């Protein structure tokens, strides 16, 4: 467009020779100094992504509340006998459905077992199933999601469709069907069954984040270094995709504990020989009208634990949110 070449700007109005009031040439004094161009701030402490996330988290009261809950639950799950003189399965039938007393602070259930003790011993089943399921779900989901997102093409088409199919199956319904057919029912089988239907969410999240991370220029830079695709995925892409996965996994842990309790409540989760909150809640149904405390305590313990993990997920999400990051 040659007509633009000779257009000189601002020829339409003659510009005034003398500046108008308030527009005289002015220069500020040099009292502050300019400093070197683009000097590195060497005074502040180094701060990486995780370090800054930690700094952000530890300022939040919610973080300490949820940490306290989770720590308490974990300690109780490891060594419940430290906190109670009773045994969960040594019960006095003659003292069934007693209300709270100094020796049985939460009372006893239909079998005469100490409700407080069973509540403490039930933590282990929940925590084991929750942690195991989440670990399996993260492994499977990340593998499938990362392969689909990073390699794309046919990998993506096949893996994503497969993910969608599994996603369409309701978790608890599928678990009920499988568990009702299972010959052995242990914490491991429950975790395996829950994990085999619980991974699609993680896979979808991983796929999305991996796809956005892999277009970064540092990935191209790594390629032009001659790094292999797998090495780039492992060293650069996955660590940068970790934040949303961690956030989801923390929240999911709570939901898997609920799922385990649901299965145990229905009598197809952990066997009745294993003390679990779901099983106890199921047992307490009949006594709900007369002795609500039997239902209340295991339910409260379950709710409290799940709340702990969900709060933690919330705090972690706030800390890892890239929009909340400095600069």
């Amino acid at each position, binding site marked *: *467009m*040659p007509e*633009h*070449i*000779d*257009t*000189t*700007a*601002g020829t*339409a*109005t003659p*510009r*005034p020779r003398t*500046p*108008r*009031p*308030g*527009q*005289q*040439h*002015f*220069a*500020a004094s*040099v009292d*502050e100094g*300019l400093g070197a*161009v*683009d000097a*590195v*701030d*060497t005074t*502040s402490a*180094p*701060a*990486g*992504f*995780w370090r*800054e996330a930690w700094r952000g988290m530890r300022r939040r009261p919610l973080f300490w509340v949820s940490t306290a809950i989770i720590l308490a639950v974990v300690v109780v799950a490891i060594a419940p006998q430290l906190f109670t003189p009773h045994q969960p399965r040594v019960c006095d039938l003659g003292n069934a459905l007693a209300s709270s007393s100094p020796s049985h602070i939460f009372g006893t259930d239909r079998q005469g077992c100490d409700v407080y003790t069973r509540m403490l011993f039930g933590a282990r089943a929940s925590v084991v199933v929750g942690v195991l399921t989440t670990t399996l779900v993260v492994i499977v989901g990340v593998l499938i999601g990362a392969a689909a997102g990073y390699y794309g093409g046919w990998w993506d088409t096949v893996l994503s469709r497969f993910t969608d199919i599994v996603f369409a199956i309701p978790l608890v319904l599928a678990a009920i069907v499988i568990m009702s057919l299972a010959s052995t029912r242990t914490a491991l089988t429950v975790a395996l069954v829950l994990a085999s239907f619980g991974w699609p969410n993680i896979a979808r999240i991983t796929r999305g984040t991996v796809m956005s991370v892999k277009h*970064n*220029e*540092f990935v*191209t*830079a*790594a*390629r*032009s*270094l*001659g*790094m292999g695709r797998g*090495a780039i995925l492992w060293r*650069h892409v996955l*660590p*940068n995709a970790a934040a949303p996965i961690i956030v989801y996994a923390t929240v999911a842990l709570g939901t898997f504990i609920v799922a385990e309790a649901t299965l145990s409540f229905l009598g197809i989760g952990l066997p009745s020989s294993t003390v679990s909150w779901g099983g106890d809640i199921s047992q307490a149904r009949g006594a709900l009208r007369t002795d609500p405390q039997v239902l209340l305590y295991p339910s409260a313990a379950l709710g409290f634990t799940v709340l702990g993990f969900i709060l933690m997920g919330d705090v972690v999400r706030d800390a890892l949110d890239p929009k909340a*990051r*400095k*600069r």
Partner: protein
Amino acid sequence: MTAQIPLTRGTDTQSSAATDPVDMTKPLLEVKGLEVSFTTGAGVVQAVRGADLVVYPGQSVAIVGESGSGKSTTAHAIINLLPGTGKVTGGSIRFDGRELVGLPRKEVEALRGREIGLVPQDPMSNLNPVWRIGTQVGEALTANGFEGSRAERRARVAQLLAEAGLKDPERRAGQYPHEFSGGMRQRSLIAMGLAARPKLLIADEPTSALDVTVQRQILDHLEMLTQDLGTAVLFITHDLGLAAERAEHLVVMFKGRVVESGPARQILADPQHPYTQRLVASAPSLASRRIQVGHELGAEPQDLLAQHPDEAVAPPRAEIVVAKNLTKVFHLRGGGRDANEFKAVDDVSFTLSRGRTLALVGESGSGKSTAANMVLGLLEPTSGAVEFDGVDITGHSGKEAFRFRRRIQPVFQNPYGSLDPLFSIYRTIEEPLRVHRVGDARSREKRVRELLDLVSLPASTMRRFPNELSGGQRQRIAIARALALNPEVIVLDEAVSALDVLVQAQVLTLLNDLQAELGLSYLFITHDLAVVRQIADKVCVMQQGRIVEQGATDQIFDSPTQDYTRELLAAIPGASLEIGPQVPAA
């Protein structure tokens, strides 16, 4: 100013502003001692400290400054659109005789659009993608008190779009933003900004996201339009050349303070404050002009950044990279029919000599980055070949390809995306050494220290993380990483385009020093011809995948043979300014 223009002008389409007897001696906008602060987690940050600013009716004024200088904050304070926790903590803003500081929100809203229009920075994100352009311009009309019927409004929208320079405005009004190019979107934003015939138009970096030729057309048009309407314009820009070309009065801001203000030409010719002096000396658009002046006077261009040994004495150098008839065809989504093929690079040939810099220049979509990626071996050419040191890289086996990587390294544009945020600076620079199994842990650490020193960063930087560094510092880290393996060629893909002028000049100087010290060859990809003048020995001008002109830098700048090259050169902001050799050098 005698006749107050009524706030609701309704269907009164022909503005009265141009015909009104406007008192040109009374300031339209007067900002005095403006203080703006933001509350952050780290405490209160003073973003603007005592800024003064005067705009007369119909006048164009520019605020110039680098990122973080408070120039946008000042403009946003005027229309009370400060983001987040921003608050005006002192000073006064008088507009047309009214004090704006402390004005109730309702009254400021009434002022916005009707008396003070805004053309925002990013044409991509400032239009709602789900609404038609016409609807959005019409909304601007309605919000500012347009009271005509639907048909009248439609006619007015078309008129506004036509005025902003869009051809076939009725049809354009029915289109969606994604059907518009960046320039067309910016034109519709200008139409919206001027819809209610404001007395003042604030243009916040109105064209910095656009190609230079488009930028020039739009600024020319905006200037014509605002002159016809008698609208005063307040430009916010980082580009001193653009500011000086488009505004009669300049306000230079630095760290929240106005460090210098005055008539544009006077500031360029005789900058008083050291910061302005630095800015004038480093502005690439002005520097390139200065070099030409130096040539004409027969003087040695002392401030020439590129200080290569004399061409005549130096022995002829081997050609390190030869691109032969490179062509890259992309198959667009939607089946394998021929109609969906897109030739990004079309029969491109160039040679890069050892120790020299070759610039590939072009606007967005010209295929320059695609060509660079083929040279880097990251993209396979559809046809043609890239020879590196006499060997065709397209036929490399895995092992050969891996060895080839050591000899050519890239530096990318985006200083925020080119470093892994989770890697410390040490790991970032060490990575190439580890991948290529160079040395042991101790010798690698020594090398990282050396490299940091080479790019003028303190060794303590290596414990830091990318988010702690500025854009220029990150870019220097990226250069250090690229240098780690002692490559012969570095591909700089818009490597300085995202940086502030002073930082850009610093990085260019660094690149030039490194070239002299290490004998590097650069393939320099950029859209910015002004920068090319400072760094390149040879230039290839690309347009729509083809090289339209190539030659020695001086030859291209002094006597371009192609219309497109001439147009690009003329579009450099500040190119039309007469800047004498009295401007102090860097």
